[in-house]
């Protein structure tokens, strides 16, 4: 290999490395966005849904029902990750036009619903375990909560997380 070729290839490598570093930086932000630490779950979810709306052209809406103050870090993180995972599935597999994230304060629980109008799936099909649903269930269990999963072909899908919670105010 001649000298100029080495230079060209080194330049190419440098470009690749820069790209990887940039992606890694973005990845680390999306794994645990600063917003989650500093401004809490609601801001982080608003930002995440907004990001998906612009990047994936999915008509996604986020709504909070009732007053929800800051929750302990582990609860906020788990809920955030569950929503993130569910939305990743929707973007990758659902072929949906609309998706919703609803965070709702109940008398003694918090409900999170992630719903889409996509192609749906059969929840009893063991082959869908790769959709990160195991992880979603595990996170919910860690919170002492439960996941309800409903879907049928052509009728979209609904993931509902319910976490028992005693609100102080």
């Amino acid at each position, binding site marked *: 290999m001649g000298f100029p070729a080495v230079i060209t290839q080194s330049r190419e490598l440098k470009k690749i490395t820069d790209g990887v570093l940039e992606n890694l930086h973005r990845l680390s932000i999306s794994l645990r966005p600063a917003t989650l630490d500093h401004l809490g779950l609601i801001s982080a979810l608003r930002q995440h849904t*907004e990001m998906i709306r612009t990047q994936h052209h999915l008509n996604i809406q986020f709504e909070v029902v009732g007053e929800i103050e800051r929750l302990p870090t582990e609860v906020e993180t788990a809920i955030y990750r569950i929503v993130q995972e569910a939305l990743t599935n929707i973007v990758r597999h659902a072929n949906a036009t609309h998706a919703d994230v*609803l965070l709702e304060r109940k008398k003694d629980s918090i409900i999170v619903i992630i719903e889409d109008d996509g192609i749906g799936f059969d929840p009893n099909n063991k082959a869908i375990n790769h959709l990160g649903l195991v992880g979603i269930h595990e996170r919910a269990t860690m919170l002492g909560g439960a996941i309800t999963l*409903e879907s049928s072909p052509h009728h979209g899908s609904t993931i509902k997380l319910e976490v028992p919670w005693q609100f102080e105010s």
Partner: protein
Amino acid sequence: MAIRIVIADDHRIMRAGLRSLLNADSGLEVVGEATNSEEAMKLVHELKPDVVLLDIGMPGNENLNALKEIKSDSSEIRILMLTMHEDSELLQECLRLGANGYIIKRAAESELIDAIYAVQRGMVYVHPSMIQSLVAVPKKTKTKYSEPETLTHREIEVILLIVEGNTNRQISETLNISIRTVETHRSNIMDKLNLHSRVDLVRYVNEHNLNNLH
């Protein structure tokens, strides 16, 4: 007279780097360093610098609080947030709390110095890569709602159960009807009201005080 600067950052090398960078400019002088938000507030109160470089990432979640405190203590002190996070919500919150600038740590040295001079002149400095998030206003489309009178009693029941966070199966169990029937109600409701999703329904119910119709 040089612009007097306090650096608040928990990383020693970062502080050392900033200090030598800033002191190399004859118009700037680093007068103090803090390693956490509490120290920063105390030092700023004592030294009354012109500009504070405040790292959002210092340990503890009190750094935004420090921003607020310093601003309420002496509003003329310019605060330039220094952060690794290109995070639009965080940027907006900082500006809302009174920050004069927001610069990301991957910015070039010259940008930091420009930013310091800019905030000292009373301007707001936001790193160029973040400006778009300030001007990108989300489009709001005003949905034309139909009136609730066109809904049947059963449909209103279904709507309220959806809005309360029930799934189709849960609704079918509560009303003792099949899931298929719930799905049909749901799609009729959406058609009648020209809505597309659960969140649309939640907003619709709030706007129409539908809870009172029931």
